[in-house]
């Protein structure tokens, strides 16, 4: 069920309240742009996708019934628009294929664990070192954030999209499943792979 505020907002939009619309664009626009950017080849195309998505939102607003939250509904329109555009660009983003070829590896390199011929197989041989040992402020430096930004860009698109929605934009797992139409397991596997790689890159960098 939509919240009272949400129903009020939808009514305001239907009544042509420009301030309500501007506020909505401010609230979701930046996240939409970031998510769209993960689907398509350039920032310019991402902006076109966002524009097209908002036109779709306006077109559909009269029929919006509040079966999902307004946010989920808007981001479904956004991702569908972005998917269509990605296909036209010759980029396909496999959300259903769990076993993508880049990823037979686990979250951590296997050689950091003790082998089967040891007394404690599968336990840490090279355990991670706490990051608070890194020089003061390094973790929170702009450079660290730039590294994360670059690493997200290197991920396979389906992982980049899921980790962006979850960890940058703060969607919960269910929102992401509903927006992308993927299973709970799928959502988690993609998030797990993405976070594992980001952690690994940070570890490398902070060493």
């Amino acid at each position, binding site marked *: 069920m939509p919240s009272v505020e949400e129903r009020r907002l939808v009514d305001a939009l239907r009544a042509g309240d*420009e301030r309500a619309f501007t506020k909505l664009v401010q609230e979701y626009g930046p996240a939409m742009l970031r998510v769209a950017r993960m689907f398509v080849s350039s920032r310019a195309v991402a*902006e076109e996708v966002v524009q097209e998505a908002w036109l779709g939102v306006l077109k559909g607003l009269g029929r919006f019934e509040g079966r999902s939250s307004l946010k989920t509904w808007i981001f479904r329109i956004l991702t569908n628009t972005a998917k269509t555009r990605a296909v036209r660009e010759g980029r396909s983003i496999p959300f259903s294929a769990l076993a993508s070829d880049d990823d037979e590896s686990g979250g951590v390199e296997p050689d950091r664990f003790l082998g089967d011929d040891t007394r404690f197989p599968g336990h*840490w041989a090279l355990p991670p070192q*706490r*990051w608070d040992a890194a020089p003061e402020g390094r*973790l929170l430096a702009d450079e660290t954030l730039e590294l994360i930004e670059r690493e*997200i860009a290197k991920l396979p698109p389906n992982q980049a999209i899921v980790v962006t929605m979850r960890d940058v934009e703060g969607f919960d797992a269910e929102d992401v499943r509903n927006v992308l139409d993927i299973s709970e397991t799928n959502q988690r596997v993609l998030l797990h792979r993405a976070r594992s790689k980001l952690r690994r890159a940070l570890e490398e960098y902070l060493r």
Partner: protein
Amino acid sequence: MRLDRELSCIEVVELVTAYLDDALGAADRERVEEHLVFCDGCSTYLEQNRQTVALTGRLVPDDIPAPLRESLVAAFREWSRA
């Protein structure tokens, strides 16, 4: 109830995301927590995952460029007149 088998670190690192999402069944959750009690390596690993999530959350989205915002507002005006 006795846990049938202890988890090894290589298994725990693959359960971290589900653990943080509170998506493990009660038995698995308990096994992970038992492991974390005595394993510094996995505790650090879990902490680093939390830190990774927190750092990723510090990325700020760019603002919507002014021309795009303006054209959206124009589209809205046209839409509400129709």
